[in-house]
């Protein structure tokens, strides 16, 4: 890594401040919420600059200000030392500042190849060359990306890479990556991060993975409650422990689950599930059971078929064979060949998807519309769900303005609102910081204590093997339980 601390910054922020209105209370009054409270930063050429902080610390707001999505309440943005105002992302793009969003909105009808042309300069569209280039990059990034895939049919990981490809093709000088690793598996994550310096741009890496920042960044800024609490470059040195101290005021209590539960009757059983789909790892005779009041994990690496299992268990992918039963719910046995999410939910199952952006919610819907979907949009159901989620936000805000952690809290609160008999969650901790993860675990423990059966599908093998939390762990490998 080259020390470029002496170079003039590509982009600087001076004393940025951003205030939002809170959700109005019963009397219609609102409070001002300060998202950024005087942030001054400098992004230098060729550096990977990590911006870390817990969910809701103001990282996303800072990036939105930097790329013209949101106007700051006060403060300046300087590009090459010249103060600039961005009225829209187009203004930022014109100054070579690009961003890859956490939940990218792509041009849905286009292929990956066509989408990559959106940002390209010049007038000729050299398809064969671009196709070859995308294939080469996909190999380098270890990305599941084919140039001729239709963008609307991509999974979250491939969707991220498609957006990244589009941003890179603009040859930006400052490239903002908003929690890129939240959607990537552990293997893809390292392969991806190691390629960043070779882009030659100034990279802003927004993350809450401290190890990631400590390992890959040339410079780190920690943000807490809208303020910078730590700034360090590699020469000064920083460790994951330093960062954690700057992120959280006190040591987090990480509750282990009260033991001794999980002795009830089987409340959720999956029998002999076979499933296959084009381009997916097929499942071969998967059987699982979860007792009332217990937490069970299914884990597996990328390519183990965990995503196929998620879709089949949620009724989003018709299985070739197999059943799901909720004994005692009076629902009997449901064939997974013809189960719809509706049928499974009616039987008393709650479903928390790994794709929060498009399955658990949708960027273009409002918070109220997302929260009330189980009550067919009934406005009176919104307030209790927001309260349960601990979110003090305006329900008319677009769902895309929520941080990853806020969105997951909203989805969880909605799914748990009806005291389900069993809950299936896919990668519920993905993209969450330590505090939100601790909250998630506490919530799931409470649900288990209430008597619900909890089934978690996760790629995080360390968590899955955590005996203080899970009563039982299944390992999925090549589509079968080991």
């Amino acid at each position: 890594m080259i020390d470029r601390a002496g170079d003039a910054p590509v982009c600087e922020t001076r004393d940025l401040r951003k205030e939002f209105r809170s959700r109005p209370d019963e009397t219609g009054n609102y409070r001002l919420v300060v998202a950024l409270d005087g942030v001054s930063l400098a992004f230098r050429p060729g550096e990977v600059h990590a911006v870390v902080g817990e969910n809701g610390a103001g990282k996303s707001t800072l990036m939105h200000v930097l790329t013209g999505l949101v106007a700051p309440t006060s403060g300046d943005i300087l590009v090459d030392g010249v103060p600039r105002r961005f009225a829209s992302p187009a203004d930022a793009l014109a100054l070579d500042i690009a961003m890859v969003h956490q939940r990218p909105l792509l041009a849905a009808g286009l292929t990956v190849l066509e989408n990559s042309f959106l940002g390209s300069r010049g007038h000729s569209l050299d398809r064969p060359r671009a196709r070859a280039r995308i294939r080469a990059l996909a190999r380098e990034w270890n990305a599941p990306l084919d140039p001729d895939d239709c963008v609307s049919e991509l999974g979250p990981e491939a969707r991220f890479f498609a957006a990244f490809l589009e941003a890179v093709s603009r040859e930006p000088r400052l490239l903002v990556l908003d929690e890129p690793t939240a959607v990537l598996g552990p293997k893809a994550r390292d392969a991806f991060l190691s390629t960043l310096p070779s882009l030659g741009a100034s990279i802003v890496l927004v993350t809450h993975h401290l190890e990631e920042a400590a390992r890959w960044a040339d410079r780190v800024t920690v943000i807490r409650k809208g303020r910078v609490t730590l700034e360090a470059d590699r020469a000064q040195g920083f460790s994951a422990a330093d960062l954690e101290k700057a992120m959280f005021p006190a040591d987090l209590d990480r509750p282990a689950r009260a033991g001794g539960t999980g002795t009830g009757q089987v409340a959720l059983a999956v029998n002999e599930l076979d499933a296959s789909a084009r381009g997916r790892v097929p499942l071969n005779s998967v059987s699982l059971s979860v007792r009332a009041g217990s937490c069970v994990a299914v884990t597996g690496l990328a390519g183990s078929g965990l995503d196929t299992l998620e879709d089949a268990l949620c009724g989003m992918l018709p299985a070739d064979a197999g059943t799901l039963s909720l004994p005692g719910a009076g629902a009997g046995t449901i064939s997974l060949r013809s189960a719809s999410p509706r049928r499974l939910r009616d039987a008393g199952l709650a479903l928390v998807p790994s794709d929060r952006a498009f399955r658990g919610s949708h960027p273009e819907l409002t918070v109220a519309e997302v929260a009330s979907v189980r009550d067919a949009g009934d406005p009176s159901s919104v307030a209790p769900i927001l309260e349960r989620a601990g979110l003090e936000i305006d329900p008319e805000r677009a769902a895309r303005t929520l941080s990853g952690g806020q969105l997951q809290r909203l989805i969880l609160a909605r799914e748990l609102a009806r005291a389900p008999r069993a809950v299936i969650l896919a990668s519920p901790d993905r993209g969450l910081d330590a505090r939100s993860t601790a909250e998630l675990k506490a919530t799931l423990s409470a649900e288990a204590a209430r008597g619900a059966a909890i089934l978690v599908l996760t790629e995080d093998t360390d968590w899955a093997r955590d005996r203080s939390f899970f009563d039982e762990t299944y390992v999925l490998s090549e589509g079968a339980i080991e």
Partner: protein
Amino acid sequence: MRRFIVPSGAILAAIATIAALVATLVLVAISGDSPAESLAAFAVRPFSSAWFLGNLLDRAGLALLAALGSSVALRSGNLNLGGEAQIYAPALVSAAMLSAPGAAASGLLAFVAALLAAIALGAALALVPGVLKTRLGASEILTSFLLSAAILPVLDYLVSGPLRNPEGNLLATREIEQSFRLPSLLPPSRLNPSFLVACALAVAAAWFISRTRAGYRLRVSGTAPEFARFAGINVGSVTAGAMAVSGALHGLAGFCAIAGTWFACHEGFSAGMGWTARAVALIAGRSPLAAIPAALLVAWLQAAADATSLYSRVPVDVTAFIQAAIFLVISARSLPGLVARSRPRGARYD
């Protein structure tokens, strides 16, 4: 990211409308002998008498009814391109039922029966593409258009053959009984209560979409189909229901066109009304209430074009050009997004 770069729908609709208007005015000005005279006829004539004004409003009312149908389908994420046949077929059935010998004797009963038959037929014609999409994943854009295109020649045959008025010289059915004709609100024009019904239905549709549970399901299924399905909404029945309502409203437009405007069904009856309705719905974007001014605007452009070709030496075909100009501008902004959105994601609907 598209959404952050493109300005909002309302602004685009305004830009599109103004662009179409300017194109039209230029066309009118250069195609006649005297630009000043042509433009005056274009701008003023449609409002110059009860006859012109009433017919303009009547035209707007019919366009609005069908446009509401188009709008409901759009909000559910479906594009109903079968409007022509969904207007023409119910119109023909209404004309046949209301002109049948002896129909007058059954009075109100025959009128209501014809109304219900028209609505049911329109709904059935749109339900077919809806069900094909739900069951087989077939694109409703193609199937609704093809079904309509296949039926139109059959309807033309029926009008000019078996159902033709043998005593008349026109390729048209018998005129409906005097007692079934909706009264004119602004004689001598054909403005009739169906215009008020259309406006009331626009208000009702806006209320339905924003305030009811079914409206919520419609909205969410249209905007976020995967989210809707995952959350337990039966996206298949929303699609089928929205298409049926869409067809029913087109059918109502066909009925009103017979009972209030033309009193007989002639060959080529729909005459682009289905496409006009689509243009109105696209100008109005996501709002049924906005369809009221949009319908008035489009009706004015059409009436103005007719008046211009009557009163100045501008060719009759200018009407077709105006239609084309509006369509080109509107569809240039809306269609790519719609087609992308309604492409099935390889998923089965439940």
